[in-house]
């Protein structure tokens, strides 16, 4: 064991106390020889399994409790459908669900995309210019308190029944966490780093790219992840107000015919969309955030230990 490995392993052990269900930790402590390192693919798979197993087990437990509750309390299926019924509904109607999911998905992606572009630019501007900061900050705080979804009806009046008001609602709810987290991220660069950079004769751009952006990225990605989840809420709320297609529309029609299984199927489809978007953001973070590259190395160290 080299000295470099040691602190890394310790810190990761602390951060994942419940997952390490095998006895390797105990074996290490009792001085047993470590096993030969596994092939790389298997190691990666094991890391993934360790990360996914606990949430999947929880989900399974919830489904079991749900199914049991439906049986034990003999709930009528128009009130609470069992997981089985929901699965059957999804199986029967998946072409319809997919159609509407496509509409909603596009609204989410457009709204979120717009929020990313506008939010990050505005966040950067607020840090670059103290005037923009002073002009925007109080407004942003006030706007945070306004329930953006309440604006959806007026957007329908302005932009009609098409996808535009949904995209805008998604944009409105998603843009705030992005602006705030971007601005916050850039302000986290220690002043000493800026001093050092200037003493190296760095241009403003070089300082930005080398010191500012890498310190800001983790915070920016936090904002993006919050925004990803919110943009789904935004798009569906927009559809609730007025729509003739989309998952929100599907939910409303199912609800009006007391088709609970249909409602649940729609909710599932929305959840999947939200998770896909979140996953995409997380993938980007893994690719581009220098800190997460660092975190991945930690995982590898633990997995091979």
């Amino acid at each position, binding site marked *: 064991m080299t000295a470099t490995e040691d602190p890394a392993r310790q810190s990761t052990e602390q951060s994942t106390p419940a997952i390490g269900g095998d006895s390797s930790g105990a074996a290490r402590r009792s001085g047993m020889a470590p096993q030969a390192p596994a092939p790389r693919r298997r190691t990666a798979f094991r890391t993934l399994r360790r990360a996914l197993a606990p949430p999947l087990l929880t989900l399974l437990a919830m489904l079991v409790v749900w199914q049991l509750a439906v049986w034990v309390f003999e709930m009528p299926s128009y009130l609470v459908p069992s997981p089985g019924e929901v699965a059957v509904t999804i199986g029967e109607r998946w072409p319809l669900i997919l159609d509407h999911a496509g509409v909603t998905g596009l609204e989410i992606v457009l709204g979120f995309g717009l929020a990313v572009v506008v939010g990050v630019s505005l966040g950067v501007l607020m840090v670059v210019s103290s005037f923009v900061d002073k002009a925007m900050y109080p407004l942003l705080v006030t706007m945070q308190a306004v329930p953006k979804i309440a604006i959806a009806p007026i957007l329908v009046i302005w932009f009609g029944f098409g996808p535009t008001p949904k995209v805008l609602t998604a944009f409105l709810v998603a843009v705030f966490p992005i602006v705030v987290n971007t601005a916050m991220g850039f302000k986290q660069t220690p002043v000493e780093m800026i001093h050092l950079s200037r003493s*190296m004769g760095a241009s403003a751009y070089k*300082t930005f790219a080398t*010191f*500012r952006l890498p310190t800001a990225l983790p915070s920016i990605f936090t904002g993006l992840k919050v925004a990803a989840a919110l943009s789904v809420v935004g798009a569906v709320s927009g559809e609730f107000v007025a729509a003739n297609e989309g998952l929100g529309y599907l939910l409303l029609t199912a609800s009006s015919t007391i088709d609970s299984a249909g409602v649940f199927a729609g909710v599932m489809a929305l959840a999947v969309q939200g998770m896909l978007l979140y996953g995409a953001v997380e993938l980007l973070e893994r690719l581009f955030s220098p800190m997460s590259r660092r975190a991945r190395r930690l995982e590898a160290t633990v997995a091979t230990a």
Partner: protein
Amino acid sequence: MNRPSIFRGVQDVQPVTDATAGGRPEDLSPDGGIALRDVCKEYVLADEQRVLALGGTTLDIAKGEFFSVVGPSGCGKSTLLMMLAGLRTPTSGTISIDGTIVDRPYTDAGIVFQRDALMEWRTVLANVTVQAEVRGTDRKAASRRAVELLRLVGLEDFVDAYPDELSGGMRQRVSIARAFVHDPSVLLMDEPFAAIDALTRETLADDLQRIWLASQKTVFFITHNIQEAVYLSDRVAIMSPRPGRLVEIVDIDLPRPRVPEVMETEEFFRLTQRVHRWFRSRERAFAEWEADQEGSR
């Protein structure tokens, strides 16, 4: 809210620089050292209140000299260092290094702050070679030199480690290596060992002495630790409380290289006492000096 902007540094007072205030530029730092002529620094606070951080300071530091400054908290030591680095502008007076007036960030310097300011997302080696990246100099050469420096400070096994895998003392060693890697002629250190325990401090001081002896750079070193100042320096300057002014400069002519045993000698004790005297009865000592100054005017 008064936060630093993304591209600019901390806002400064417009300087009332008068290049001829303390002699013509050609008289300044002729031997390649540092020269300060009547340097004052006044900060203007948000409420228009003015704080005189540094009183008129005139000083020459020879090329290759190890010069330390001790003084009470808030007396303007960091302010002085920041002006030497060209990161703040004097309100009046001139600073020159190696014959040129410092009126912009001085790039031929290595800086070590109290906080190590390491980039957590980079390995130890990449934290040191960032100098070459930003300056656009040869990266391969920088990387070789960085490895050599990291070996000198005892971090040869941690070249590929990340900062959060290091102890505080080890982190500060990385920032020392970073300050040396581009082979600057001036080294500016602002309480580099302040956050480090007493025992580690002594080994770090030895590390610093070793690489300084091998390079013979001009060092401007701020510390609160008198023993450390005497142990490392050619001269130790004592500053008065705010507005800071130099009240005494003590020559330290202990032989080099200095080894920890030197701290047990009578001469070392005498020199530290000489510096310490100022702080033992701080108010009285500085007040007497103040009165002296008035009298001699």
